[in-house]
């Protein structure tokens, strides 16, 4: 989509020959970039290509090692620590960047509180928060504390926070990574509303259809180099992918092997009740990929967490291979060969202040004991294996995980989960923030695992992913199973209908009003 | 029934080190003894961790215990003068123990241990044993008024004796600190002829350090207070700790006795009772030996 009349001649923000190194490690090489008012300029590239670093430079969070930045045509040195917000440059960080103890309304106005007579005007802030949240169709209480929100809601709060500021340049680093179709649509509506008002938007995403949908121009980065800046009309998803990865991406999804309907049931859940989960029953067969679709907050995560023993289930039975498997803690489920990979990599998945190796082996440390002591060689080997298998790219293996690019963190977490060699894997948003090239790899890994006889539950907000990989799809809505799809029924429209509550039922009689 | 009873509040510092422990024990024993002997007397003991805490205790004794008389061993003299005056103004009979208030007119009875005399007597004994040019070291308590009083008196008495005071350090009325400070004195000074440890808890640590260094024959130690272990040693003729200077924690019991006597005897009891700080030697040690006391 283009917004021709909105795009003015002069760039509001531009970067010339920007380079950036962290210590001795170069990350960006002489990048040129500009953004005009009313334009959506997308940045794409593989994981670790330097997208986040570039926009951090563009918002003053990081200072470039060399090169200049122009704002409104004048060369400027952007102030650090988000102070550039005062100039109208607003950034949504790739990783959630909220103080967990504050309330939603506090977070939205953090750093630029509304005051009356020098005191906080709480009512006004609450009102305005509610307003912004409402335009985004997010239904969270402005007084709720951040640590009680789901990852997706947190992301929406971040978006609300950014939108509520008087931005001239709004920079969004993978805002849609945890959002499902509905939320993404709302977000795009808002972005279009803003660009219509002349706001310039820089947008990073690994979802190429979103790029095609939203962006006016696309800049492609690879290994810190600028590959090209082109207008969206000149592109197809395939050509973008090719530019990003440097090779043809023919089949994103591997061919589905035929589901074996006679394969034994390895995981059976009956009448599961837990916080956020209402009467869920399903079976998972050997070698099956079972997709879980649904809107945000529909309870998919809650099901997974109750099954593996992270939360207490209040009723229902879980059995594995016909034996009761009521896990009271995760350690037991891991030992039984059932692993859960969280979607909240920052808060639940990885120790950000530690290195790659301790993170990778944390779940399976017992495997790396020799005579009761940790065998660091064996740990190092595991890391090497994971680095190869999941193509984890750290410019410097000593970096703390918090310094890895978002996608590489995700890959590390995948590696960590797979280290436990589970028979059943519940993957919660496994490709969150992962570039198309790697996504393809991961899809192939998932398919291969299924072919090997492992069973997989795939929770994903990316509809295509669920459709492309799953043998069967369960759709959840408000904590209940809303529908069950198989084979040719698995199409986007059908899933949406169940997820939105337009269609109900399925083959299970218990699914009623 | 409560009204007929005479309630006597006893406010003392908490049992944070040996001497105060002894004092607490003697107070508790005296309470049992006096309450048994005089059914119309009720004693209430409260303990404090510091001057301000003690001031609070005094308020509580007046407002909730509604005492008729107060026996108080002030944590520090000056800060507690006004709070004790307030108790007096509330109509109570006041007995002050050990550390005098800055305004002596407040008290009806004063039972005094004697820090000055303790310092002087210790100095006199050391002077009697040593010659000009001999060396001593001093271990002090916690930097407080009472420690300073003892120390100043001791130094005053030593003046002109020609005996060198090599150094003094705080040992906080604590055996462990006494042990460590003495260890360091021993490694620092090759020639020490006497140690003024000022307190029997410190003495015990000092003695261990001297024994560890194997320098028992070189010096002697003068402590203070009258701890039973030390008195026993003096009785048995211990050469390392040949004497002790009394600074008895039992003074609190004396004070409680005379205060009760004020209510139970016929004549009024007031005035000052100075207990003194006599030197305890092998000859008189028996009189000061209470094997059942915890101190």
């Amino acid at each position, binding site marked *: 989509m283009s917004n021709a009349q909105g795009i003015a001649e002069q760039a509001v923000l531009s970067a010339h020959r920007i380079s950036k190194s962290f210590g001795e490690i170069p990350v960006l090489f002489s990048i040129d970039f500009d953004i005009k008012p009313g334009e959506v300029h997308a940045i794409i590239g593989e994981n670790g290509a330097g997208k986040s670093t570039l926009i951090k430079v563009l918002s003053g969070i990081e200072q470039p090692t060399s090169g200049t930045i122009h704002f409104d045509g004048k060369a400027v040195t952007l102030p650090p*620590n988000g102070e550039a917000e005062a100039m109208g440059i607003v950034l949504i960080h790739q990783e959630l960047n909220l*103080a967990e103890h504050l309330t939603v309304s506090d977070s939205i106005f953090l750093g630029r509180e509304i005051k009356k007579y020098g*005191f906080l005007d709480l009512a006004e802030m609450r009102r305005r928060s509610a307003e912004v949240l409402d335009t985004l169709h997010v239904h969270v209480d402005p007084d709720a504390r951040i640590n009680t929100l789901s990852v997706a809601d947190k992301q929406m709060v971040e978006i609300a926070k950014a939108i509520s500021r008087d931005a001239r340049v709004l920079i969004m680093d993978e805002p849609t990574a945890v959002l499902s179709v509905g939320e993404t649509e709302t977000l795009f509506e808002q972005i279009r509303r803003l660009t219509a008002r002349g706001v310039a938007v820089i947008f990073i995403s690994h979802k190429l259809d979103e790029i095609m949908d939203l962006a006016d121009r696309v800049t492609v980065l690879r290994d810190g180099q600028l590959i090209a800046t082109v207008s969206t009309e000149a592109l197809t998803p395939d050509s973008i992918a090719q530019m990003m990865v440097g090779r043809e991406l023919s089949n994103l999804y591997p061919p589905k092997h035929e589901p074996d309907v006679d394969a034994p049931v390895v995981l059976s859940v009956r009448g599961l009740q837990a916080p956020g989960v209402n009467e869920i029953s399903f079976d998972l067969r050997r070698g099956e990929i079972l997709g879980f679709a649904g809107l945000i907050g529909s309870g998919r995560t809650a099901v997974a967490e109750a099954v593996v023993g992270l939360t207490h289930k209040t009723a229902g039975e879980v059995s594995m291979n016909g034996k009761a498997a009521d896990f009271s803690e995760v350690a037991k489920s891991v030992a039984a060969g059932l692993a859960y990979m969280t979607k909240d990599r920052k808060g639940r998945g990885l120790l950000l202040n530690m290195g790659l190796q301790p993170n990778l082996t944390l779940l399976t440390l017992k495997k790396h004991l020799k005579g009761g002591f940790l065998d660091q060689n064996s740990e190092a080997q595991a890391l090497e294996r994971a680095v190869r298998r999941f193509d984890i790219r750290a410019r410097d293996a000593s970096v703390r995980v918090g310094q890895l690019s978002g996608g590489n963190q995700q890959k590390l977490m995948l590696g960590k989960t797979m280290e436990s060699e589970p028979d059943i894997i519940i993957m919660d948003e496994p490709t969150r923030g992962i570039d198309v090239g790697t996504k393809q790899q991961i899809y192939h890994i998932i398919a291969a695992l299924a072919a090997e006889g492992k069973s997989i539950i795939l929770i994903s907000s990316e509809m295509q992913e669920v459709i492309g990989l799953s043998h069967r799809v369960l759709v959840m809505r408000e904590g209940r199973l809303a529908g069950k799809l198989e084979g040719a029924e698995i199409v986007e429209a059908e899933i949406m209908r169940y997820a939105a509550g337009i269609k109900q039922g399925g083959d299970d009689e218990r699914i009623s009003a | 029934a409560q009204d007929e009873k005479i309630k006597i509040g006893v406010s003392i510092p908490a049992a944070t080190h040996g001497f105060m422990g002894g004092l607490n024990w003697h107070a508790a024993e005296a309470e049992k003894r006096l309450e048994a002997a005089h059914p119309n007397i009720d004693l209430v003991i409260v*303990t404090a961790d510091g001057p301000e*805490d003690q001031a609070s205790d005094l308020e509580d004794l007046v407002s909730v215990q509604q005492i008729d008389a107060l026996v108080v061993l002030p944590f520090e003299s000056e800060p507690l003068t006004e709070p004790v005056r307030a108790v007096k103004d509330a109509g109570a009979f006041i007995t002050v123990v050990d550390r005098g208030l800055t305004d002596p007119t407040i008290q009806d009875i004063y039972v005094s241990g004697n820090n000055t005399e303790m310092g002087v007597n210790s100095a006199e004994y050391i002077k009697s044993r040593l010659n000009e040019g001999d060396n001593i070291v001093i271990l002090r308590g916690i930097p407080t008024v009472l420690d300073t009083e003892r120390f100043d008196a001791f130094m005053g008495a030593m003046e002109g004796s020609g005996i060198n005071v090599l150094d003094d350090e705080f040992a906080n009325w604590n055996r462990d600190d006494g042990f460590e400070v003495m260890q360091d004195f021993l490694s620092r000074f090759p020639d020490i002829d006497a140690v003024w440890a000022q307190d029997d808890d410190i003495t015990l640590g000092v003695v261990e350090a001297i024994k560890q260094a194997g320098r028992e024959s070189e010096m002697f130690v003068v402590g203070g207070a009258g701890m039973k272990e030390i008195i026993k040693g003096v009785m048995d003729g211990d050469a390392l700790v040949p004497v002790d200077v009394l600074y008895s924690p039992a003074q609190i019991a004396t004070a409680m006795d005379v205060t009760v006597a004020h209510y139970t005897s016929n004549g009024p009891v007031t005035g000052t009772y100075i207990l003194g700080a006599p030197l305890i030697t092998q000859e008189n040690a028996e009189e000061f030996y209470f094997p059942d006391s915890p101190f």
Partner: protein
Amino acid sequence: MSVSAHEGAKPARGLRIDFKTLGPLLALILLVILGYLLNPLFLGEGNITNILTRSAFIGIIAVGATFVITAGGIDLSVGSMAAFIAGVMIIVMNWAVGAMGASLWTVLFGIGCSLILGVGAGFINGFLTTKAKIEAFIVTLGTMGIYRSLVTYFADGGTLSLATGARDIYRPVYYDSFLRIPYPVWVFILVAIVGWVLMNRTAFGRYCMAIGSNEHVARYSAIKVDRVKTATYILQGLCVSLATIIYVPRLGSASAATGVLWELEAIAAVIIGGTMLKGGFGRVGGTVIGALILTAIGNILNLTEIISNYLNGAVQGVIIVAAVYLQRGSLRTGRKKAAE
């Protein structure tokens, strides 16, 4: 989709907040009942006044500590700082009495000095933690030793006492009342209100919480983290100074024994009140109740003779743990109810 859930959640949240505030209050109420049962005079006007007045010292200091802790710091130096400020105040006022005779000005002069010292001492703690980047624990452990030593040194191992002239003028500040409420209690009430407003109704309070919760986030939100953190220490210093100003007329003296372990009591009051030691979430109201709980425990121990004096500390320990358990317990029930 989530509209119904949204509405359903509202009352639950109200319930949760209620419980959070109720926690420490409940513990305090139980303690008051216990006190009354042990000795009905516990609720006598005199005793209540005493408890309130006493809790003022720790309470005022603890209000300051609430900010430091909320912003993720800790200040171990407050007790020593109080002793130090009291000592210097006395020295200064005595000098003023000597130079110009005792007058109201003497006292005001002393109070002024106290405020300056409090702010200065707070600034030093703040500077060393933020600029020199030394852990707050170590910095304030260090200044704790330094201040305590300095008082001892100034007092030559003894007590510093306020000259009688100044004493007489200053005395009413502790002992007199306004509307039957002693001045220290008024100061406490004032500090508590200002503290509460600062924490809950100003950007500063938000910044403290944000910093304690996640320093990176705070930094990225253009909050001047170092400045806010330093400000919490200065605020703490100011609170210590205020506490000292009402402390000095009580006993008219300062020594090495002044304010010993106040830091522990202050921190305990803060945490009993529901603020988290790791920072991120501060409750001034809870702190006030925490200070009252601590003072009430000490008072109750003086009400009765059923427990050996030697066990005072044990009883205190048990009550503190029980009080916190109670409030956390009720909190959890509250949460569970809200979830169901």
